[in-house]
């Protein structure tokens, strides 16, 4: 058992922190929050230059061959620099978390056209699973794909999709699940097939972006597909296996979210501590009041606990990929524990900080309110809401017989 991070990890963390201190300052984050989307492309480009955008891809595919533990450390630093979770969403969860799965099942053509440019920060790649009928129940999807000659014809609608405007601006596209066979009673997830759909493909009609509560610099919208024709080599992996691939994609995105929101919590508490040590009320610093100090201590303790969960989860994912040491479902349990709790904690920390600071904390003078708005996205959804994570954990610890929805 060794809990220390090695010299390379330290140097990599230092690099990311240096880059963020130079380019992704809190002033910059505030500016992004005010200006809104599209997401500034200097960030993916800069992170790509550092080798940490899609860092876990093998070098021959444009990645850096990082393990998930190192990538999680990167996500943590990014969450620290941008505690609204916006950069975490755009560059880590979506592009990097999903990017790995996209690349893993991509044909040489998809790699060439979409993944490689994405590793350079030149194109956007993301995932589109949620449909107007529902998001949490991934298997309940209605989009369809029909084979015609050497092409597939896709129809349907995807909604609450991150990065549509960015994909339109930079080029790029999505991992899209469609049904390529009949609905199997009791096994809705069967016959799901995943395709790469360029956002500028004929028949793709993007919708208007939503006006979200936070994470304003990254667009969320949807698109309809009407007889979109894609070539056969735009299919990911094998026909009908889409559901399993999608779960793996969620895993990687979720584990980076856990690490990233740990970073955000760390930043929130650092900033709040600096304030409560300085600010005096009734002649003594706020931090001397037990009512505040104890709340801080509780959050701090949970932060360190979540950091351990996030690190262990990333380590487990590495063991799973490299040595097949854990069953995917065992890893998924840990991933869900992180994805459930870490964002909750981050939002709680931001909320408490605002209570401590009062009106100042509620204003745009401090980062707490934008962090609070942005991080809430990871509680309500963004790769599965809090309750979905609990379902996964419950299934693993109680057994399949106790799945609530069956």
């Amino acid at each position: 058992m060794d809990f220390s991070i090695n010299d390379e990890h330290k140097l990599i963390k230092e690099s990311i922190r240096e880059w963020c201190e130079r380019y992704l300052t809190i002033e910059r984050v505030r500016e992004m929050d005010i200006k809104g989307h599209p997401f500034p492309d200097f960030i993916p480009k800069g992170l790509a230059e550092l080798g940490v955008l899609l860092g876990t891809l093998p070098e021959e595919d444009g990645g850096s061959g990082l393990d998930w533990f190192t990538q999680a450390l990167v996500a943590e630093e990014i969450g620290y620099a941008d505690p609204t979770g916006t950069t975490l969403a755009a560059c880590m969860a979506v592009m990097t978390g999903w990017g790995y799965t996209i690349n893993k099942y991509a044909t040489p053509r998809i790699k060439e056209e979409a993944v490689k440019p994405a590793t350079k920060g030149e194109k956007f790649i993301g995932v589109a699973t949620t449909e107007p009928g529902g998001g949490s129940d991934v298997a309940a999807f209605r989009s369809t794909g029909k084979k015609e000659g050497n092409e597939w014809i896709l129809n349907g609608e995807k909604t609450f999709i991150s990065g549509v405007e960015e994909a339109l601006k930079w080029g790029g596209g999505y991992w899209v699940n469609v049904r390529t066979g009949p609905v199997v009673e009791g096994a809705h997830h069967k016959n799901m097939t995943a395709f790469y759909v360029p956002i500028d493909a004929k028949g793709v009609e993007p919708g208007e972006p939503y006006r979200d509560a936070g994470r304003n610099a990254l667009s969320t919208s949807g698109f309809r597909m009407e007889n979109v024709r894609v070539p056969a080599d735009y299919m990911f992996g094998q026909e009908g296996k889409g559901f399993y691939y999608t779960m793996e994609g969620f895993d990687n995105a979720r584990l980076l979210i856990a690490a990233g929101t740990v970073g955000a919590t760390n930043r929130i508490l650092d900033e709040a501590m600096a304030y409560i040590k300085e600010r005096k009320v009734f002649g003594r610093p706020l931090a001397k009041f037990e009512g505040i100090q104890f709340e801080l201590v509780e959050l701090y303790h949970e932060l360190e606990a979540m950091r351990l969960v996030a690190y262990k989860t990333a380590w487990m994912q590495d063991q799973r990929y490299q040595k097949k040491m854990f069953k995917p479902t065992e890893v998924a349990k840990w991933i869900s524990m992180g994805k459930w709790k870490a964002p909750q904690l981050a939002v709680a920390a931001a909320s408490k900080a605002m209570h401590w600071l009062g009106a100042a904390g509620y204003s745009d003078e401090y980062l707490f309110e934008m962090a609070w708005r942005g991080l809430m996205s990871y509680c309500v959804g963004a790769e599965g809401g809090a309750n979905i994570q609990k379902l996964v954990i419950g299934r693993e610890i109680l057994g399949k017989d106790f799945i609530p929805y069956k």
Partner: protein
Amino acid sequence: MTRLIVCVKQVPDTSEVEMDKKTGTIIREGVPSILNPFCEFALHEALRLKDKMGGTVCAITMGPPQAEDALKKCLAIGADEAILLTDPAFAGSDTYATAYTLAQAIKRMGEFDLVFCGQQAIDGDTAQVGPELARLLDIPQLTYIESIEQIEAGGALCKQETDSGYQRVRSRIPALIACLPTPDFEPRIPNVRDVMKAKRKTISTWNKEDIGGAAAVFGLVGSPTQVIKVYSPPKREQGILIQVSPGEAAAKIVDILKGRGVIG
């Protein structure tokens, strides 16, 4: 092939130093160690030259075992190899003993084209090791160099800062170049691929037997100067802070100027 040597120093990050409010002494404990920014610029210049003309860059430092961290950073930034000079006998070196130790090691390394160093280090600010090293290696020195513009048959062409401006200078090579960061200098941030590659590069560790030389010139015994006392500077008297209208503030300033005889 061009061979470039960069002498670097690990220093405490002086911008992170805090004062003990009670005793007025500075607390060095827990202050992070960094690569001296002047050295980082020197390394940057060496790498820039390497990118242009090919060759290799070797980083070298003298210090306690943990000075290895500075070398790791150099390798991550792009140096090809690194040498750590460490031996309890080197402890207590003043600038002369430091220059002597570096010179012994560099002589052992064989032929080279340029030795780079930072103009000074942010902890000592002496600016002496570079020139002393040049003299001990018997090579010409150029100090206060902002950029190496060209290496040609006749030597190295550089832009040098003077007391009152700049001049263009040329030196025969091999030479020692002491580098002064330009205002727009932004240190290269190592990318992760370089960090991983650096893991495979070697750091050689040399002690006093490895580099040879006269035992009497190393470390504390070999240092002609002795630090006999280190203390906090006398505290500056607490100034006055005033917040008044611009007109009154201006009048106050003029009063001070008059009081100090600056204006009549």
